[in-house]
């Protein structure tokens, strides 16, 4: 099984520990993982701003970087969703090979246990693109049999206490350039999500997308709240130092 590691541009630059956790987690599960060195961005920021056409070269670059891999795994539901869509537009075989890390662990690897420990009260932020785009879990709007891939994995972690939220999968208001172009609403949405986690006693907010967590973290730090954010791969990989 040849695995290509896709690390979103902002994770590469600002959250290397998330890339490291993803890589280590996959290696611990016995996989051979390579990180192609010339990757940059999937093109989603441009596309969501109305400049989808500008991403054409970026998708070509992605294909070149990852063409020899059967699976491409990334720690982001949002980027993976965008890649899947764009790759299927250009009829690339990679469209079916790109996975968000949690769905890869549950659906392809059938992971049943993880040796990690994380003795904290954790609130899960269900990032929308992973949730509603990739169906990492059943969105609260739908009358379907409930499933929850990130939750299934987190429940394998020793000592973890998952908190219930009042609004279990409401958007945090990051939304890419939305966070800046609709600053006021974005900040209000994020603040309200934090309040929900806070009211329900979360010490750590985790999720499948560092971008949403970056937005929440920015608010938490400005508001001097004693809640930390961690990417789900960090917890699954056993990083239990809450900074």
């Amino acid at each position, binding site marked *: 099984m040849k695995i290509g590691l896709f690390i979103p541009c902002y994770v590469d630059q600002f959250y290397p520990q998330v890339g490291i956790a993803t890589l280590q987690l996959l290696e611990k599960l016995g996989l051979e993982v390579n990180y192609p060195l010339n990757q940059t961005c999937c093109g989603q920021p441009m596309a969501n*701003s109305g400049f989808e056409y500008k991403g054409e070269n970026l998708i070509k670059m992605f294909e070149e970087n990852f063409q020899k891999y059967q699976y491409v795994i990334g720690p982001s539901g949002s980027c993976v969703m965008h890649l899947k869509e764009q790759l299927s537009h250009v009829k690339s075989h990679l469209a079916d090979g790109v996975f968000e890390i949690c769905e890869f662990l549950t659906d392809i690897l059938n992971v049943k246990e993880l040796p990690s420990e994380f003795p904290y009260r954790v609130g899960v932020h269900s990032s929308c693109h992973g949730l509603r785009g990739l169906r990492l879990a059943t969105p609260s709007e739908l009358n379907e049999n409930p499933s929850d891939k990130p939750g299934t994995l987190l429940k394998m972690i020793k000592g973890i206490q998952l908190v219930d939220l009042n609004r279990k999968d409401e958007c945090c208001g990051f939304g890419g350039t939305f966070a800046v172009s609709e600053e006021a609403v974005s900040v209000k949405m994020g603040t309200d999500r934090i309040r929900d986690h806070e009211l329900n006693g979360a010490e750590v907010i985790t999720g499948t997308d560092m971008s949403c967590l970056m937005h929440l973290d920015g608010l938490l730090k400005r508001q001097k709240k004693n809640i930390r954010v961690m990417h789900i791969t960090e917890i699954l990989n056993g990083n239990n130092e809450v900074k």
Partner: protein
Amino acid sequence: MVSHAKNAEKFTKDLEKVDWHDATLWGARSKRDLAAKSIPEWESLRTLASQIKENVLANLDEYLLEFEKNALLNGAEVFWAKDGEEHNKIVGDLLVKHNINNLVKSKSILTEECHLNQYLEDLGYDVVDTDLGERIIQFAKQPPSHIVTPAIHVKKEEIGELFHQYIGTEKGATDPQYLTEAARGHLREKFLNAEAAITGVNFAIAENGGFVVCTNEGNADMGANLAPIQIACMGIEKLIPKAEHLGVFLRLLARSATGQSITNYTSHFFTPKKNGKLYIVMVDNGRTEQLGREDFRNSLKCIRCGACMNTCPVYRKSGGYSYGYTIPGPIGSVLAPGRDDHEYASLPFASSLCGSCTNVCPVKIDLHDQLYKWRQQIVKNGNVDQSKKWSMQMATYIFEHPKLFRFMGKTARLFMRLSPRFLIYNSLNKWGKSRELPDSPKQSFRDWYINHKIR
């Protein structure tokens, strides 16, 4: 040009009101969830409703003709209006023809879209909206801020003041029971004196020429069933092929809107009442154009339940008026650019593309995908400011050149690490107005990878 972001910023300043607005509409969304989950076949119903509407759109001309034929057989008169102006003129002319002095009107978003009230008031008519919410905003001289609960943004203290001023309730009275009772008395008088009643249409049935109007208050019925002249105004997309399809739509409509299993009154009008007249006005007003837009025609399936507004976090936290269009929220942001993609260019961007709207839509309109597609269209048509275009161009260029990307990344991180706070947090940095930027690590992931895995 409407700037949703600017309007929204104003709305968010009154935190107490925003929180109330948000919680109230979330309440509607929660009730909708409970109702949807009480029906095992809910998702199948949504699919069926979408398929029926698909069929309607593919045969709309034939269904309209079938409806017209049957409505005429029922004794109704049918008018076709290509736009809002013509619609208003038809209604105005009917009122003049019948020497109407007093008229009542029940809720119709179509007539809001056409600005009928303004037109009739200019002709000298006192238009009396009879839905309680609509009467409230009529007193306040405001448009609706939500299509199902039009006065959702008005607090009971403000309503008390309006009622004191217009219908003589006690000053300072805010009890909803008392205020509603006062409105009942006030509007009963209007119903009894009305010579004409205007209603909207929820569904028009091609096979029998009838139409259905849903209310909880019974105001459409009090109006239409008392006044000798009844005028029903409908968008041409309100057609459904057969009465049996009502079974599907009525199971979805109220549950999606408010979580009720059905509205307390679901009236089916076929013939004019005894000694009365029944007129039906069918309006295009941009719908046929939207039908021709392959990416956006699905929006014509809308049954105006308002569920996408209730679930939309942006709508809940920015209010209906921030959209500057008759229909706010996700569906409004899909419809408005079809009317004018310059004026309403900001609306498709008033979304985090979270996709919740698509999931609650009872007719499965792919709302967030359409918002995404409008963004592409709006940029293509040049309705985007230069600075955004330039920054996107620059970003793309950087991402297309991995070495440059790495250099820029490293420089930015270094700058963020070493610069004094005022250089980073200033008016140019919108992110940093209420949020901290992430810490800037010395090493990127790639740097780490080369150090640990390749060397």
